[in-house]
């Protein structure tokens, strides 16, 4: 069905990556009649292929190419080779994501203005605001079937939510509900409702959770305007002597180098791979990498302030039953510096299966203290902290030319130090999370360190000023007009919310802009 395009066809838009950003952009452009070739490093897996077994699924879906992390954050010690937990597959990390779909709060678009200068942080206002994003959010919510928007009912609460709700209300919190989730609470978009199966992270076997793998991608392919080339790993973007990009060199499923010509290139390989690709595309004209005249490519890597609180109760909770993240407490999401930090955080329900609980509860720990906690697994409830971390110029993705991947390409290195604001926020969130569980009857709480990041944002930041940002308000690079960034790496700051909804809203908006500019002959 998908139109195969010639590799020399320089009228196509080439999108690198098919996740929340790339997959959405690909379909939106295809629906507008624009020819798109999407290069996807991973293979194609659909609900019937997903495996509801944590390690087996991890082996099937996770991005496991060589990476290294360093810095003072604990993850660099616990999982030095696995800074992120993202997916290599058609659909990208929308296969793995939990579905939480929250809009930024109004003040978060203008973090510098509203928080003021924070020492050591490179806070900046987005060139966008809530009013400008409102219609795009509305489109994204409708596309994704987000609960508690557009008349979609909320999901029913599972045991883990009921514990969170009871404890949160007991300590005086008000905004507690089962979340705004891109998981069908009723049949929607030709997909069925959630069956409370758990394993949201391993790919939804019912297709109830929105994923570009079985929504945007096939819809785009049906138009005949989208060709997805799976198991094709982008190596570098090429340009002409006028400094405009002309095509993408990639390695195909057989490991053979290919080149696809392009009218426009959109980079959506997630926040580690996208800057890596720009840096690995350095040329004599752009010796520091493409779109990097500001020196900002790779900088301001953000991953949210995270952490978990698991608590053991006297009687069974069985938190793994039901939707993994359909529960949220939002009272602490506000900006209130009287707490000792700027920005805010959400507390969201979370559970891990026994194998991942053992691996992530307290990495490296052993002995009776650890195993007695695991013995309490059936009686555990869990929640996850997701808060705004401070952008820092020195938190960055670089490439290591001495360590190459299976294609001979320099590999990414992720450096991250916690900012004091991050530490203060995490401590506050642990304390509040423990208080919530205590109020619901917990007998022992386990403040659990951050996992490898699923929220990776900010390494090609958006700014109106070409000196301090990589892309403009459309995600278009300041240096190269026909080169765009279409994923979470364009985030100026991270806000307290799970990033996918904003990535999708930005992609819909970007598609509209690209189509308009192409129509006007500007691209």
């Amino acid at each position, binding site marked *: 069905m998908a139109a195969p395009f010639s590799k020399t066809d320089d009228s196509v838009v080439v999108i690198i990556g098919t996740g929340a950003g790339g997959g959405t952009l690909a379909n939106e452009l295809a629906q507008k009649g624009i020819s798109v070739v999407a290069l996807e490093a991973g293979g194609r897996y659909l609900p019937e292929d997903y495996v509801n077994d944590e390690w087996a699924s991890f082996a099937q879906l996770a991005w496991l190419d060589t990476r290294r992390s360093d810095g003072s954050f604990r993850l660099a010690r616990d999982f030095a080779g696995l800074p992120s937990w993202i997916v290599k597959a058609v659909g990208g990390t929308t296969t793995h994501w939990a579905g939480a779909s929250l809009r930024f709060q109004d003040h978060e678009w203008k973090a510098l203005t509203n928080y003021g200068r924070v020492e050591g942080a490179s806070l900046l206002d987005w060139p966008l605001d809530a009013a400008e994003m409102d219609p795009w959010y509305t489109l994204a919510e409708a596309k994704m079937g987000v609960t508690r928007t557009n008349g979609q009912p909320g999901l029913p609460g599972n*045991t883990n939510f009921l514990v969170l709700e009871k404890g949160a209300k007991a300590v005086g919190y008000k905004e507690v509900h089962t979340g705004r989730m891109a998981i069908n609470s009723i049949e929607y978009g030709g997909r069925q409702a959630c*069956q409370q199966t758990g394993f949201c992270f391993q790919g939804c076997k019912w297709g109830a959770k929105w994923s570009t793998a079985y929504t945007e991608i096939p819809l785009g392919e049906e138009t005949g305007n989208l060709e997805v080339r799976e198991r094709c790993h982008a190596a570098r973007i090429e340009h002409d002597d006028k400094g405009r990009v002309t095509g993408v060199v990639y390695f195909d499923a057989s490991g053979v180098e290919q080149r696809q010509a392009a009218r426009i290139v959109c980079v959506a390989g997630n926040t580690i791979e996208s800057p890596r690709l720009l840096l690995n595309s350095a040329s004599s004209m752009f010796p520091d990498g493409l779109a990097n005249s500001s020196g900002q490519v790779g900088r301001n890597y953000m991953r949210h302030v995270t952490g978990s609180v698991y608590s053991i109760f006297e009687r069974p909770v069985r938190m793994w*039953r039901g939707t993994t993240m359909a529960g949220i407490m939002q009272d602490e999401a506000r900006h209130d510096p009287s707490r000792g930090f700027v920005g805010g955080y959400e507390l969201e329900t979370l559970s891990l299966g*026994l194998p991942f609980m053992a691996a992530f509860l307290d990495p490296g720990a052993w*002995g009776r203290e650890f195993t007695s906690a695991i013995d309490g697994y059936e009686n555990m409830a869990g929640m996850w902290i997701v808060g705004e971390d401070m952008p820092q110029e020195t938190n960055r993705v670089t490439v290591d030319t001495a360590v190459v991947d299976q294609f001979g390409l320099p590999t990414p290195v992720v450096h991250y130090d916690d900012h004091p604001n991050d530490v203060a926020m995490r401590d506050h969130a642990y304390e509040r999370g423990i208080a919530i569980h205590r109020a619901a009857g917990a007998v022992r709480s386990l403040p659990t360190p951050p996992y490898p990041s699923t929220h990776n944002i900010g390494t090609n930041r958006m700014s109106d000023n070409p000196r301090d940002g990589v892309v403009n308000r459309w995600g278009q690079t300041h240096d190269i007009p026909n080169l765009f960034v279409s994923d979470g790496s364009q985030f100026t700051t991270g806000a307290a919310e799970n990033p996918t909804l904003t990535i999708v809203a930005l992609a819909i908006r970007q598609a509209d802009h690209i189509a308009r500019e192409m129509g006007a002959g500007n691209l």
Partner: protein
Amino acid sequence: MNRIDRAGMTRRELLARSVAAGGSLLVGASWVTGRSAAWALEVTALKPGTMATLVQMARDIYPHDRIPDDRYAVAVKGYDTADKAPAVEAGIAALDAAAQGQGHPSYLGARWEAERVAVLRGIEKGEFFRTIRAGLVTDLYNQKEIWPLFGYEGESFSHGGYIDRGFNDIAWL
């Protein structure tokens, strides 16, 4: 309730035995058998005594009194290969030496768990301990056979999820 499912293990690796007396792991010419003698592990590259010590070390790292020895044995049996055996033999020899340094005849000869844990604390920064622990956290807890001991139910898709099977069943709350 017998929660041990032997599917996936070959006869050669795991042989059912009739009941014998308890005590520590029994070691034969090329096999290790459990205290209840409900299982036995044939070794090919490692010395049986080395495997017995490794199984005890695994239990001391992640002690769950309801998990039988055979599950710990399964978790470490991957070290019984020609290429891995030399490092494991050396590691266990060092472990025994460390135990002797603390006044025990050997690692297995330290009778209290706390005594063995004290020996392990002395080597926990070393490559051997870190390798064993890191492998174990996956190879022990990823065995479906032990999940029921923790109440964990694994996948539910084949049963239609929990929508009609207790996703919100927490009457005690």
